[in-house]
């Protein structure tokens, strides 16, 4: 066997990641949500036929799918991550794991890598199958845009995974970590958008907002919500999303809204929470 490859396989990060994959690959909820991804995507495209002239292409399907993604991807990511550390501590298996020749940072990285692969697999397989079916039914599909959509979905999923991982190092009980994860999902999906909308109404004229001329600072504060960043990333890169929004409020992103900024913000969330998880786990008594 190639020595470098052998070294990678024998690295504790890779060993823990493989164990996480083995432990989660038969997780009923992960399989169920993967199937739901595929079914919903195909259904969105097919049902579009009732209201227009046939199966919708991937761009239009993505626009329809985004709200489902914003609902389901955080749930699957939080579900995978919330018990990763606290669950093992509560059960007792972390005692043995930490006593092995491994650094705590390697445990965190191994968990992130393994759970990240499970999450990515679920998103790629779920949307991938649907993409293939839609590709058969619809001519001239823009697969590049679909791949960007899948990649952005994976990125936002990893953000939520790491937030859940952090919660898992923060609390002493699995149930509290689950409560924290649910609250977080609720906060980013329900509370924060309402707060931001309130700020927008307080700071700008109602008629301006209806006309779509939202002030730039409003777009700026939107970036604290990873879901808004995800929406912007997809909207900036997938043509179908923009055209589907033409009937409603016209989206006119400010000039600083670029693909790279959105990708950077999501990476900062991922790395930031990974570091916070490590810092917290390193100080934790097992």
């Amino acid at each position, binding site marked *: 066997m190639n020595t470098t490859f052998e070294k990678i396989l024998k690295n504790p990060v890779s*060993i823990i990641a493989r164990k996480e994959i083995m432990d989660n690959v038969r997780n009923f909820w992960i399989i169920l949500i993967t199937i739901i991804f595929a079914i919903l995507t195909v259904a969105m495209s097919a049902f579009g036929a009732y209201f227009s002239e046939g199966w919708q292409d991937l761009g239009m399907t993505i626009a329809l799918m985004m709200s489902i993604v914003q609902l389901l991807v955080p749930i699957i990511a939080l579900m995978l991550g919330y018990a990763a550390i606290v669950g093992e501590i509560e059960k007792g298996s972390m*005692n*043995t794991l930490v006593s*092995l*020749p491994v650094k705590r940072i390697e445990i965190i990285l191994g968990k992130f890598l393994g759970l990240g692969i499970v999450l990515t697999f679920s998103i790629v397989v779920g949307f991938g199958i649907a993409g293939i079916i839609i590709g058969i039914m619809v001519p001239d599909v823009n697969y590049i845009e679909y791949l960007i959509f899948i990649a952005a979905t994976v990125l936002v999923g990893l953000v939520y995974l790491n937030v859940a991982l952090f919660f898992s190092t923060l609390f002493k009980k699995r149930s509290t970590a689950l409560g924290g994860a649910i609250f977080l999902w609720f906060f980013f999906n329900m509370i924060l958008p309402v707060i931001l909308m309130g700020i927008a109404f307080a700071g700008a004229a109602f008629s301006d907002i209806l006309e779509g001329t939202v002030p730039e600072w409003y777009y700026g504060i939107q970036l604290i919500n990873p879901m808004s960043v995800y929406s912007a990333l997809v909207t900036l890169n997938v043509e179908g999303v923009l055209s589907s929004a033409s009937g409603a409020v016209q989206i006119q992103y400010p000039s600083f809204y670029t693909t790279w900024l959105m990708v950077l913000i999501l990476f900062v969330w991922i790395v930031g929470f990974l570091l916070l998880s490590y810092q917290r786990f390193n100080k934790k008594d097992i």
Partner: protein
Amino acid sequence: MIEKTIRCPSCKNQLTINGNPGDKIQIICPSCNSKGVFTFPHEESFLSESNPIQVLNLTKKFNNFIAVNNISFSVKAGEIFGFLGPNGAGKTTTMKAILSLINTNSGQIKINGISIHKDPKVAHKYVGYLPERIAFYDNLTALQNMYFYADMKNTPKGECKPLLDEMGLGGALDKKVGKFSKGMQQRLGMACALIGSPPILVLDEPSGGLDPRGVALIRKKIREMKSKGTTVFLSSHILSEIQEVCDRVGIIDKGVLVAQDSVSKLSEKLKLKPKITIELEQISNEVVEAVKKVQGVEKVDVKGKNIDIICDPKSKSKVILAVEKAGGSVINIQTKEPSLEEVFLKVTGE
């Protein structure tokens, strides 16, 4: 260079081979020509320190509660050191500190000379640990769990099946651990602790949740490891178990290490006296009175045809002489040394 004596699996012929840690050597048995490969254990399988576990001024607080208060002790290479204490005395906290599972407030801990605070990853290579509260990955089988630990310890997976067989789990290799009983999990825990033949074993209540057969198996395994030169740091509530297998004991009470030595030396220090039971053909008042008058006799109890006498070891011959002089006809004499339980109760003031 290490010299190792091995046995040919086919003809049981003994061979002596030499090599360095980690070397893989091709072997052809001169007696039956069977071929095989032997891997010399890694450096982590050997101890360079005469005191492979050293704890110096260890203190651990949980908020305002002092769980472990400035304790110091060391465990000698190749000995079995029993760690005793009442519930909540600080045994598990000390064990967890030794394995860097918890952060300490002050003190130093060294495993084979390596600071557990500075380089826990290297220090852990020398240790096999069986925690008090054992748990595994329930979705994985016993063998998959073992493979995971073997990978983490960088040990060949070939060790796993024989270890599970030895621990009586040969028939449950492919059974998911989630379906294991507490006793089976404890046996699996012991098998995991033994992966890679670590030179130090830290065992926290190893007999917990086991049936008598399991307890016997674990004790046998501990003795076997001692005969191989393994250093064992063991905590148990079963004092007879500690007395049976340990060379020295440390007793912790309310976070303070109140005693450490061999049981016999602790008995001496604590001036605990042995119990002599003399069985007579017939007991008379003269005999009992004569025994009571012997210098060094502390307590005399009559039970049927037996007299139980607690006295200085030096007075034993005088007691027997006094019995015979008073006309007592001795059938049998038994001497029971002070038990660890007595030492424990005296030291902890219970």
